């Protein structure tokens, strides 16, 4: 098998914007999807076609109209700005639906966007079964490559009207998040002080994200788009207590820390 590209999977997400009055036409929801990733190694369209059609012929049903993400990280010519339009039409003739790219340079991403592709950020990449290991009976073995997630640390109060966003990782706040302030993270949120404002964790759809606070006095908490607004004061067993918020079977759960 040629080594022009490589199949693997990455979780990603889609978020639709919430539209306010009158009567929401759409709702803010985050969901996690697993998408096949085409890891591009060379840009030669002929070679790509050859490899892909061979792969597809092996499992036709699986690839029929499958959305795919193009991974630019492993290009042998890292700076090359690909002809995404040509690449996309090739993929479509193979009955694949290219939806976006991950990694790559700013120029590459720009070219991808111009060709109608999205740029997907974050996402851990699960190494798919490599061709050579397929012959062995190790089909189950999946090595997880987790994108190293950095944490953003804030040690000043987050005040009314301010917003802090930890992109691609966790947020750690060592001072109060006051009423009217908003803290957002792609990952978890830890607040070692009162949370009086809003906290939204896992905003790209990570349903395993959590919010952990030293003193729960929140106006709103949200995990992966599932949110709860507290118009009234929180119940006594939570208010002012150390608490955590997580999703349990898609239901937002608030519990005091023990």
């Amino acid at each position: 098998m040629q080594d022009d590209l490589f199949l693997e999977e990455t979780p990603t997400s889609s978020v639709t914007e919430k539209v306010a009055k009158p009567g929401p036409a759409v709702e803010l929801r985050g969901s996690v999807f697993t998408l096949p990733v085409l890891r591009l190694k060379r840009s030669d369209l002929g070679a790509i076609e050859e490899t892909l059609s061979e792969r597809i012929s092996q499992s036709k049903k699986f690839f029929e109209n499958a959305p795919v993400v193009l991974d630019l990280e492993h290009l042998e010519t890292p700076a090359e700005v690909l002809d995404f339009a040509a690449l996309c039409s090739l993929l479509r003739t193979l009955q694949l639906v290219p939806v976006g790219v991950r990694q790559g340079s700013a120029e590459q991403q720009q070219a991808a966007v111009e060709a109608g592709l999205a740029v997907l950020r974050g996402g851990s990449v699960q190494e798919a079964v490599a061709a050579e290991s397929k012959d062995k009976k190790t089909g189950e073995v999946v090595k997880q490559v987790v994108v190293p997630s950095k944490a953003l640390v804030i040690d000043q109060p987050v005040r009314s009207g301010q917003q802090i966003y930890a992109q691609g990782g966790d947020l750690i706040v060592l001072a109060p998040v006051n009423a009217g302030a908003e803290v957002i993270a792609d990952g978890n949120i830890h607040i070692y002080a009162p949370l009086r404002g809003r906290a939204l964790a896992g905003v790209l759809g990570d349903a395993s994200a959590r919010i952990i606070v030293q003193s729960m006095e929140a106006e709103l908490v949200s995990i992966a788009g599932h949110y709860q607004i507290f118009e009234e004061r929180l119940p006594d067993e939570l208010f002012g207590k150390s608490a955590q918020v997580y999703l349990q079977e898609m239901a937002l759960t608030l519990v005091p820390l023990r």
Partner: protein
Amino acid sequence: MSKVIVVTSGKGGVGKTTTSASFATGLAMKGHKTVVIDFDVGLRNLDLIMGCERRVVYDFVNVINGEATLKQALIKDKTHDKLFILPASQTRDKDAFTKEGVEKVIDELRESFDYIVCDSPAGIEKGAIMALYFADEALVVTNPEVSSVRDSDRILGILAAKSKRAEEGAEPIKEHLIVTRYSPERVESGEMLSIEDINDLLGINLMGVIPESESVLQASNSGIPVIRDSQSSSGQAYDDVVMRFLGEEVPMRFLDAEKKGLFKRIFGA
């Protein structure tokens, strides 16, 4: 080294102008050359409270536009020769303020004054931003109520993010809290937030608590800053603020409700 101090709050009607007038007067009474600037274009009332409204000829905007020199626009206080007022324009619109224009005036004032006190308009619009932008220190004025504290929180966020010091990554603006219109009785009855509550919510250095007092209104009506009324509790509280600002240790006063004396206990309040 001269210092620029903004008196700000977010919310209107909490006592910024009252505080600016008394604070500036207090600094001058202690021998420091002080100017107080009215940034409230269109709603000018600092000159009324300072009792110099009849002597306003040129204003801050005239100076920014080069229509008058600072010397022409500055009004010298009647009683304190170290105190000057730079009045706001009553007619101009708020776009008269440009960063460059305000900076030029403040830089010029820095050359001859110890303290430059900026009386901010309410809100978080251009006028308020201009008043705080060049500040070295801030007096954040709050009333003991939730909405006022929330607005002050917002202003503190702006001080920390949008001031010149913040933009240049210099040492942050020194923030001081002044709680005004404080009524111990109403705090005790739970109608108003306590100092502790406010401190919990804002978490900045408390520089003074000014009690609610009728003498403030009387003082404003007669054009004499209340700090000059040494009989009134508010005047004394402002005097304490000035001393604390200048580095003296002064215990907090006027925090507790007055114990009813024997007479009041027998005959009622």
